[in-house]
């Protein structure tokens, strides 16, 4: 089939060229259209149902909102699990779908179910679907600055800027944060209410009914029609003050008689601060799957468009702009790709010294990349560090096929020229012969490389999301390269190989290499045992070295922007948190390395941001690297800042914006093992968690044990004494109304002022509700107008309660988290779950579930246990098909451990940890290592065959001679393939640009492995080959070699 393809290509050269021109156009078109982002979106395939219920405690939210929603949302098609959390004032239900479910399909299903679920919720509580975006989509943050008060800036943001930016394509949501939402505040004076004999309820009704415009159809006047409007919307504080509440002895009682009305700030759960000053800002969230870069650029363009329309002096200033990171990251890889192409070309120049033939190798390279882009576009993979990285690490291998092909054609041409004095006229035939000879092995070795990478697809969870794009693009590029090698490359050979040819022997670089290689190989063949022992010793040393290398999940991407995330106690007040943040920001802003500091406490008003108020996220923009004192690293600066910011009671966390969002989004358990206890009483859950923690502590291997504390936030509970209430003839509902309105405040609707809308809120004046003692004096109206202080109707007490309630599948969840060290996790879980089942009895309605990262690991291990042997087997079969000999196939596989040796050493030398990236690097290495082995063995076989043909049956000496010949003669393609792989990876390794740090641990094993496998292939493989053949010689009569080696 491959032969036919080659022959077809050679026969229809024009057609092939035309086809590839079209392919190039297609690839370029796709390249322009592929969405660009920094890293793949690692969030789970989830739909967030977000419900605001202002002012309610986590417990109320859990019982009345989260629970009914959760139970309704289970059982949708494709739902993997429903996790939820109830916090102060809002409920967040994460419906996690299987990865295969389309997000818009999922959203529709959830929406369907919400219709039903909404009826089970308290009146006025409306669940909403989060935007079709994730927290990772928060790509652009800005502040609105100007000489106005925060309230005015906030309404500008809320009612003007926000909606304008939201209209930009690709933007899912623009959320506001900071400043104050303006609000009409009616602060009731209970004393005056009592004096005028007006009840709170009357006032509420009066205000509610005094804020509307009505229509009354039309009136005809003459021949005209006049539209009738009844005006009555609240437009100012005076309008509210003049609302009549009741009539008291003939005089109207106005709102102003019983309350103080003002325009004030709404209650808030988020604060923004810039360098120690109150600020107003917004977050632009891009749509799932949208082109982040394009969206950001469009947003910036839109800002330029609307800026002239802002009030005098108001500016929109970005303080987090991911586009620069994306640009830099993509630039890094573009540069790497460019440098790789240059280096690869350089390698060819050095080794081939035939400039036209270089085109044969370098032309398919961009084509393969463009083909990969074409596939990317159609499979919906975005351009990011990982997917581009996939192409980058493939570059070296991409040209391999071309090199082997070209080299072979050149060799054939040389031989032909030697024999006939010329070759150009016969080039078509020469190419055909040469191409047919290596076509099959090329195809098989490329197939091996592609296949060897298959285990990466078996990665699940976050690793999977991170590396699947890389695996896909690498595979796409490889498939492209393979196709090119058997179609375009031969065609190009016929067109471009002409002129004077340079023999390998004439090449200076080759001469030097051969001079070094020959004695080495001779010595090795003479001292086989020593050679093999050295190789084995190196391997053992590598195994030992591997045990000293640390491990981590992923080397963090340097996002250029630092994020300082101090976490305080959950009971901290917003005032104190703000005060702390001001101080922290002031300290940060003073530092000479810091250009801009913008801190955020709590949530921006988007469901993609669940941060509680004890969590501050401060985005630090550092000055450009060029302004730092020489030798300073970002790490040094952060370390210095951390030392300055050490405050008691505050845990400093340094992270980066994207990483932080990913961390916040993963709601699952992130230790190796998590024991989830399900039940319906938080206290029981907490007690059981503590019991389980005690039991687990005794089981060997358990470390980092931690039973999640459920309580920790202070509650002021107003426990109504029903008997007391009954004695005064007061309904519990009335008391609740008072608690809600008097203490908490109640919104009575919105004013409509042009585009802007502000809530109207009623609440007791501050003096009457400010502290717990005062709350006891809040009056509740009973039957016949008696006013009873709340303290006599209820017990008011401070207790510790949950700051956030987590539940899963409709039951409350307590967790014990732990890691396992020193033994295998599966065995540990088995033993531990038995112990827990025996020693911690669960009450009815409670059960324990074991989960955690180990599940992923187990699943991945199980998959890998299946996939890796299958891949090995397939590679073996492919090798067998190449050699028709199992022995040879196994022999080639031996390249793998030796490749590993170099990879481990380089990893250690560069101080990289074992991470998923490094593992993927190793996987990539195996395929390449096998491939180089294949090439070597083919040439050795060929040499032996030629020897037999030339001198008859082999002797020990002639065999060695043949091996020397084969190894030496074909040094060029081997060195070239290795050199191109190395050249293709070096730019990544020496790059200090953004994003390179993620690719480096991936490139390092390949690079080190290629170096050691070069040695292995050049030295150890001939030795083993010689040893195997000599055994054959010893066993069989040295008469004949009946086998013929097809395919060569």
């Amino acid at each position, binding site marked *: 089939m491959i032969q036919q393809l080659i022959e077809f290509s050679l026969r229809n050269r024009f057609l092939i060229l035309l086809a590839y021109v079209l392919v190039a156009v297609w690839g370029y078109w796709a390249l322009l259209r592929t969405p660009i982002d920094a890293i793949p979106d690692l969030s789970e395939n989830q739909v967030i149902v977000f419900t605001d219920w202002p002012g309610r405690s986590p417990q109320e939210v859990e019982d009345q909102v989260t629970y009914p929603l959760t139970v309704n949302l289970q059982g949708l098609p494709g739902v993997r699990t429903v996790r939820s959390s109830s916090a102060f004032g809002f409920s967040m239900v994460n419906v996690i779908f299987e990865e295969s479910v389309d997000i818009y399909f999922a959203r529709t299903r959830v929406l369907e179910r919400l219709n039903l679920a909404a009826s089970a919720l308290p009146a006025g509580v409306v669940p909403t679907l989060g935007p079709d975006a994730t927290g990772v989509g928060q790509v652009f943050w800005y502040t609105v600055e100007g000489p106005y008060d925060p309230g005015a800036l906030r309404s500008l943001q809320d009612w003007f800027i926000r909606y304008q930016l939201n209209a930009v394509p690709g933007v899912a949501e623009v959320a506001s944060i900071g400043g104050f939402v303006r609000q009409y505040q009616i602060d009731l004076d209970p*004393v005056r209410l*009592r004096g005028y004999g007006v009840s709170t309820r009357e006032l509420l009704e009066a205000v509610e009914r005094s804020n509307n415009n009505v229509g009354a159809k039309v009136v005809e006047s003459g021949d005209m029609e006049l539209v009738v409007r009844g005006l009555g919307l609240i437009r100012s504080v005076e309008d509210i003050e003049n609302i009549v509440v009741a009539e008291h002895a003939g005089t109207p009682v106005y709102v102003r008689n019983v309350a103080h009305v003002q325009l004030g700030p709404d209650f808030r759960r988020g604060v923004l601060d810039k360098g120690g000053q109150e600020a107003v800002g917004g977050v632009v969230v891009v749509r799932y799957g949208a082109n982040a870069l394009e969206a950001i650029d469009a947003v910036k363009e839109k800002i330029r468009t609307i800026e002239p329309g802002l009030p005098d002096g108001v500016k929109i200033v970005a303080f987090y702009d991911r586009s620069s990171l994306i640009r830099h990251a993509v630039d890094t890889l573009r540069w790497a790709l460019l440098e790789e192409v240059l280096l690869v070309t350089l390698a060819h120049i050095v080794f081939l010294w035939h400039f036209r033939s270089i085109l044969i190798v370098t032309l398919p390279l961009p084509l393969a990349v463009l083909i990969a882009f074409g596939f990317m576009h159609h499979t919906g993979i975005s351009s990011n560090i990982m997917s581009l990285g996939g192409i980058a690490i493939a570059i070296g291998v991409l040209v391999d096929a071309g090199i082997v092909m070209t080299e072979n054609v050149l060799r054939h041409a040389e031989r032909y020229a030697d024999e006939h004095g010329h070759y150009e006229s016969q080039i078509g035939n020469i190419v055909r012969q040469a191409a047919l000879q290596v076509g099959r092995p090329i195809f098989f070795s490329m197939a091996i490389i592609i296949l060897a990478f298959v285990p990466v697809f078996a990665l699940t969870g976050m690793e999977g999301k991170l590396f699947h794009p890389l695996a896909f693009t690498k595979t796409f590029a490889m498939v492209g390269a393979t196709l090119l090698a058997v179609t375009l490359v031969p065609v190009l050979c016929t067109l471009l190989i002409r002129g004077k040819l340079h023999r390998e022997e004439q090449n200076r670089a080759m001469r030097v290499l051969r001079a070094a290689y020959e004695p080495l190989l001779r010595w090795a063949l003479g001292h086989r045992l020593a050679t093999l022992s050295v190789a084995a010793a190196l391997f053992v040393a590598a195994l030992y070295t591997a045990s000293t*290398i*640390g*491990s*981590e999940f992923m080397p963090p991407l340097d996002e250029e922007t630092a994020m300082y995330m101090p*976490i*305080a*106690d*959950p*009971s*901290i007040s917003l005032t*104190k948190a703000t005060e*702390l943040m001001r*101080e922290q920001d002031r*300290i940060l802003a003073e530092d000479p390395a810091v250009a801009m500091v913008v801190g955020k406490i709590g949530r921006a008003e988007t469901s993609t941001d669940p941060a*509680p108020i*004890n*969590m501050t996220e401060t985005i630090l923009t550092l000055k450009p690297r060029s302004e730092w004192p020489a030798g300073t690293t970002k*790490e040094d600066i952060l370390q210095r800042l*951390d030392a300055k910011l*050490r*405050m*008691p*009671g*505050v*845990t*400093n*966390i*340094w992270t980066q914006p994207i990483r932080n969002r990913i*961390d*916040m989004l*993963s709601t699952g*358990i*992130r230790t190796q093992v998590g024991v989830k206890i399900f039940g319906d009483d938080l206290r029981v859950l907490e007690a059981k968690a503590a019991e389980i923690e005690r039991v687990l502590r005794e089981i060997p291997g358990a*470390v*980092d044990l*931690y039973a*999640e*504390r459920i309580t*920790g936030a*202070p509650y002021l509970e107003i426990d109504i004494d029903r008997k007391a209430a009954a004695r*005064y003839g007061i309904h519990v509902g009335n008391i609740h109304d008072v608690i809600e309105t008097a203490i908490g405040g109640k919104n009575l609707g919105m004013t409509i002022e042009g585009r802007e809308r502000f809530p109207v809120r009623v609440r007791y004046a501050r003096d009457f509700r400010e*502290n717990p*003692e005062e709350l006891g*004096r809040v009056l509740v109206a009973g039957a016949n107008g008696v006013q*009873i*202080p709340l303290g*006599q109707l209820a017990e008011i*007490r*401070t*207790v*510790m309660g949950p700051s*956030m309630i987590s539940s899963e599948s409709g039951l409350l969840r307590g967790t014990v*988290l732990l*890691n396992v*060290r020193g033994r295998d996790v599966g065995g540990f879980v088995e033993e531990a779950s038995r112990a827990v089942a025996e020693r911690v009895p669960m009450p009815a309605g409670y059960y324990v579930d074991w989960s955690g990262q180990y599940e992923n690991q187990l699943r991945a291990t199980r998959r890998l246990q299946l996939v890796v042997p299958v891949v090995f087997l397939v590679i073996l079969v492919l090798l067998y098909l190449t050699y028709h000999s199992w022995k040879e196939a196994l022999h080639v596989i031996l390249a793998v451990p030796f490749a590993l040796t170099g990879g481990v050493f380089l990893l250690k030398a560069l*101080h990289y*940890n*074992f991470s998923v990236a490094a593992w993927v690097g190793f996987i990539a290495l195996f395929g390449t290592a096998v491939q180089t082995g294949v090439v070597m063995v083919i040439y050795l076989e060929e040499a032996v065959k030629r020897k037999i043909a030339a001198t008859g049956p082999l002797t020990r000496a002639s065999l060695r001679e043949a091996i020397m010949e084969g190894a030496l003669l074909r040094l060029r393609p081997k060195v070239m393939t290795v050199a191109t792989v190395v050249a293709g990876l070096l730019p990544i390794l020496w790059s200090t640009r953004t994003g390179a740090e993620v690719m480096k641990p991936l490139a390092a094993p390949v690079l080190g492995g290629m170096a050691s496998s070069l040695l292995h292939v050049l030295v150890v493989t001939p030795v083993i080959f010689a040893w195997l053949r000599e055994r054959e010689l010893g066993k069989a009569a040295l008469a004949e070699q009946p086998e013929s080696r097809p395919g060569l």
Partner: protein
Amino acid sequence: MTGNEKRIAATGVLAGLVLASVLYASYRFARGESVAPTAASTTRNHSPAEPAPDDAMATGAFVQVEMTAEEQKAIQLRTEEVHRRDLQRSVLAVGRVEEAETRLATISARVGGRIDRLFADYTGQELKQGQAIALLYSPEVVASAEEYRLAREHLEKLGPGAAPRAVEQARDLVEASRRRLELWGIREEQVRELEQSGAPRIHITISSPVNGIITERRVTQGQYVREGDVLYTVSDLSTVWVKVDVFETDLPLVRVGQPVEITTESMPGRTLAGRVGFIEPMLNPQTRTVAVRIEVKNPRMSLRPGMYVHATLLSRAEKTLAVPRSAVLDTGMRKVVYVALGGDAFEGRQVEVGPPGEKYYPVLAGLKEGERVVTRGNFLIDSQTRITGGMTGLFGGSKEFAGEPTAAQKNGWKVTLQVEPDPPLGGTENDFLVSLTGPDGKAASDAQVRVELLMPAMPAMGMAEMRASAELRWDGQQYRGKASIPMAGRWSVTVEALRGGKRLARYRTQLNAR
């Protein structure tokens, strides 16, 4: 002794000892000393099992915290001395202005007749004592006046030669009729007028007997009134009563004679002074309040009956030990203050406080005069103790917070920590090397050195707290041990050197594992 007896005896001795120590402890409590005086407080640091009173009413120290000057500055820590203060606890109440019951007057008709003229003809009119308010035409009075005139004429007619008995009779008659007029309220000058004019005036002037304001007018001009009919109610508003309802809980703060400040909506910024005049003996079972009467001088008539006023009943200032409200943290189960022990040490102490005043809590137990309490930054210190333990059991965690190596350096001990490899690696074992120099500058080799690593939990992110620790052994030059760092990231490290259960030094720092 049999074995059993021995056991009983031993138990007895043990019980005695326990009892004695409990008694001693309570004695010291009663004297207001903290169980852990400053000097002994270092011992508390490494006996975590000892304190942590679970009893909500207990007072005393439960944790000690050290903080560097930089840390104190970073959280803008402020302290304030505890002293005795005039704690004025005032009761705020809403009152209604009422007329003083003691100053009400009623003007009634002493004789029946017709009101011919009304000078005070509207409610609310102010009356002065003696001011004419109405002219009454009373036929009865007219008749009596006529009678009086006739009696006088008769008397005059009698002349000097009249029989003394007749004169006597006529004089009696004059006197009697005059008396009758007077009893009806016809004043002397009117009588005199009558005497002089001869012709009887038919109207009687009714005048006000008191100063005051007409609160009720029951007559109109031309109305016939009968004897005894109420014409006006007059109220003297120069002193008014303010009735306030005081809730049961505030009652202990109210006394008769207590000064009261009155403010009204009508005169913002002005206060009137009053005094508690009477506390009603009955509690209104409907409202659970007791009415208290406040007497207020009202010379300018600014308080008008029916008005709502705010009354602040000022209690007598008491000198009590007081602590600023901001210094007290209420965890719901206990009230906690942080006491500066001098230097960098602070002590968390549970206190008992009374009902709060405007700015201060009266201290009932747990603090002494002259101690300094933290008034700003105490929340953070408290949460720090929660992050790393301190409040054992209450918030979870088991290790208290220590500051920078201040404690160590103070006693002359110096700790240096070195980690191999540097930077340490996450997910694998690392070597920890500690050298410990004593006050004499020599390396100490007989200490127990322990390294603890902690990565605090991040509940918001579903990350558990992670810990690791290692006991280091003396290797001839320094202490050395292996600890595995569970994962890459920022770890807080505490090195602690103990000798014989006593802490020599402690060093806290951060490591960044790769």
